[in-house]
């Protein structure tokens, strides 16, 4: 009987044995190469002893006990033999040494450091962590920012969002699952010096006047590793000029959050973008005065031969959704929770006849109505920002066939929280959205220089939805839509080259795609996969190609995860070549269209 009990008990243990799985380990943001591999057993990760040196730990083994030391801490754990290999429990060890760990997927363990303190005093920012940290400092341009990345560091989402009252222009957030990022505005290019106090602590010291902190303040951050969520830190939000380029150079950093259709030819758009959420001061003010309507200031009207721009400042964040209704000879915007002085202004430019603004009360909510009396069809771009609205009307071409008569929507794919494809990680990570924008801006500039009225669906790191992008093109009665993308697959260096997609059944779109792809093939030096119907990718096709009402194409310039392609697509010269090819393709298409008429 005893034998049966022992046998059964062994059988009962089998599931534990079966539950053992190989797993990977990332340590402070860096993936470790482990051969033999680590094993997941229950919620613990067992790592072969031979890999101890990869963690930089000193260890002494006695029988089945292992003592692991860092400079200031000690962990005593038991050794366990798995598949004949002596292993130590990584999660238990990490916890005893002050680090934390989390299963980021069932077969991947991340060992991380938590933020313990962030504070500032007298021109210094100090950061303390529970375990080792190696900060990386670099700068970003437009606007100038100092960035301090902490790989392998996490903080709770409940962490205070900003160092209020410090006056440093400092903000921070979880940049990705394993990187904490601190960003400081660099005004007047002050010098910054990084001082590592200990493995757990470092300080940033500024010498520029803009960064002299007032007083001393700081926050303890009660982090919980399992709550770390990727979040991108955005640059401080400032009102930005509109995005339409009508025979002018592209604005250095314009922005568009295009309208959303609701229903056809009626659009609504949120006044509050994702970027606004990072503008902590405004957000705080917004919360404090939740019910108070925004007062719109006096509109600034500018008009030239081809564009009419109205920029309206507001004294606080604009909330709710602005509705835009397009009628035959007018455009009506209704801005909720806002007030404005009544204004009426006439124009004699043969383009916009009259502009009117008026407040009205709908229930308990104030609304501002802006009405444009327009002559003939116009392109419309609407750019809500934190504290201003910009409406740009672009003259519609009188005739087709010349590039100077075209309204072309250039769409840099993805943006904001939608990175598109990416390659690499940490500071070397390359996002598709970034190269899309860089190339699309060059395309926009060349088309604009050639005489077209160009509308960029985004000109910074924002995310207009696909519906917004389509609405921008359709409302503007654009004559062409060119979306710029880069491709990737899950097998690095397996696929290379360019595609240009069109929506199945669109003869003009197909023609435009063929013209552009032919020109890109001539300059790219990459394999040319030709013009392809988007239904070859998926039966329904691509949203922006399917729903735009004009010839529309989506260019895939190269593969972000192919070394040859990546070297090219990140090179400005190559981006310029692609832009020239798109321009030539558009010209060839117009020439063909003119000849066939």
């Amino acid at each position, binding site marked *: *009987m005893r034998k*049966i*009990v022992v046998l*059964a*008990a062994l*059988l*009962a*243990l*089998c*599931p*534990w044995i*079966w*539950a053992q799985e190989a797993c990977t380990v990332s340590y402070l943001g860096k993936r470790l190469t482990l051969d033999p591999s680590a094993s997941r057993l229950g*919620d613990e990760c067992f790592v072969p002893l031979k890999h101890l040196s990869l963690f930089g730990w000193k260890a002494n083994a006695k029988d089945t006990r292992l003592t692991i030391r860092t400079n200031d801490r000690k962990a005593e754990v038991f050794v366990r033999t798995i598949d004949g290999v002596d292993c130590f429990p990584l999660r238990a060890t990490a916890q005893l040494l002050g680090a934390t760990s*989390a*299963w*980021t*997927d*069932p*077969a*991947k363990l991340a060992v991380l450091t938590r933020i313990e303190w962030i504070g500032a005093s007298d021109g210094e920012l100090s950061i303390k962590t529970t375990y080792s940290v190696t900060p990386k400092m670099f700068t970003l341009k437009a606007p100038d920012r100092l960035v301090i990345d902490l790989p392998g560091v996490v903080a709770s989402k409940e962490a205070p969002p900003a160092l209020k009252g410090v006056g440093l222009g400092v903000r921070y957030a979880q940049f990705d*699952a394993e990187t904490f990022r601190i960003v400081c505005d660099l005004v007047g290019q002050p010098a910054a010096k990084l001082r590592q106090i200990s493995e757990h602590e470092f300080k940033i010291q500024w010498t520029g006047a803009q960064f002299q902190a007032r007083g001393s303040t700081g926050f303890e951050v009660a982090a919980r590793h399992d709550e770390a969520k990727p979040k991108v830190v955005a640059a401080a939000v400032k009102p930005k000029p509109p995005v339409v380029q009508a025979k002018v150079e592209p604005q250095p950093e314009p922005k568009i959050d295009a309208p959303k259709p609701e229903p056809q030819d009626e659009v609504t758009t949120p006044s509050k973008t994702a970027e606004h959420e990072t503008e902590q001061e405004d957000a705080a003010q917004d919360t404090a005065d939740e019910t108070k309507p925004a007062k719109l200031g006096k509109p600034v009207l500018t008009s030239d031969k081809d564009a009419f721009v109205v920029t309206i400042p507001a004294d606080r964040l604009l909330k709710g959704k602005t509705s835009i209704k397009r009628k035959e000879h007018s455009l009506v915007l209704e801005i909720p929770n806002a007030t404005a002085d009544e204004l009426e202004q006439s124009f004699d430019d043969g383009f916009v006849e009259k502009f009117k603004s008026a407040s009205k009360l709908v229930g308990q909510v104030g609304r501002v109505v802006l009405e444009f009396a327009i002559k003939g069809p116009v392109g419309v771009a609407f750019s809500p920002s934190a504290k201003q609205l910009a409406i740009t009307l672009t003259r519609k071409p009188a005739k087709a066939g010349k590039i100077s008569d075209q309204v072309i929507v250039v769409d840099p*794919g*993805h943006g904001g929280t*939608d*990175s*598109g*494809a*990416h390659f690499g990680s940490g500071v070397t990570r390359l*996002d*598709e*959205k970034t190269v899309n924008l860089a190339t699309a801006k060059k395309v926009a500039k060349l088309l604009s220089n050639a005489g077209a009225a160009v509308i960029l669906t985004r000109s910074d790191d924002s995310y207009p*939805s*696909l*519906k917004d992008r389509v609405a921008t093109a359709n409302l503007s009665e654009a004559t062409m839509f060119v979306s710029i*993308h*880069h*491709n*990737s*697959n*899950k*097998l690095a260096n*397996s*696929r290379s080259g360019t*595609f240009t*997609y069109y929506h199945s059944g669109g003869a003009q779109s197909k023609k435009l795609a063929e013209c552009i792809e032919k020109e890109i093939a001539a300059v790219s030096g990459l394999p040319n996969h030709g013009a392809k119907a988007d239904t070859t*990718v*998926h*039966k*329904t*096709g*691509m*949203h*922006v190609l*399917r*729903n735009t009402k004009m010839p529309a194409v*989506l260019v*895939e310039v190269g593969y*972000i995860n192919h070394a040859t392609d990546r070297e090219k697509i990140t090179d400005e010269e190559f981006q310029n070549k692609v832009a020239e090819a798109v321009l030539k393709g558009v010209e060839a298409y117009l020439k063909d269209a003119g000849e066939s008429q």
Partner: protein
Amino acid sequence: MKRVFAVVVVLLLVAGGVVYFLWPRSSGSNQGAATPSGSINQRDTVTIYHPTYKNDQIGFEKNPIKVADGNPIATAINGMLREPKLFPAGVQLLDSKVEGDTVTLDFSKELRAGYSTDEEEAVLKSISTSMGQFKELNKVRIFVEGKPIDTLGNIDLSEPMEVERQ
């Protein structure tokens, strides 16, 4: 009496081991509270489709596995979600519902990661092919956190996808 006691102890140990083995881990894939209908629910095994790239075309490796929790749809999707090269880390199937010939798959927000055109194609093809093994289904609707989505990146998902049969 002793023999009865020993048998009870052995049974408890076996049951404990089985429960441990089958119990979903906190950071693992959710089994999904699916409500599959009709003959879908009768299946003992399902096929897990793992995408492969050959000659520039997406193909699939097929691995049959036993249905877990009596839920073939959740088993097929959860098996696929464990493919680390295809789906973003942390994606879980929250729910699945069958109405007529359409299955609605509700995923966690991690599904909304960045995708290139090829990656999006691979994800959608994997889902539609995985659901194509159920003859009762013709269409798939994708939800994220209980809400329908129009796209994962570029491809128009405003209408249900058709399943793909292998």
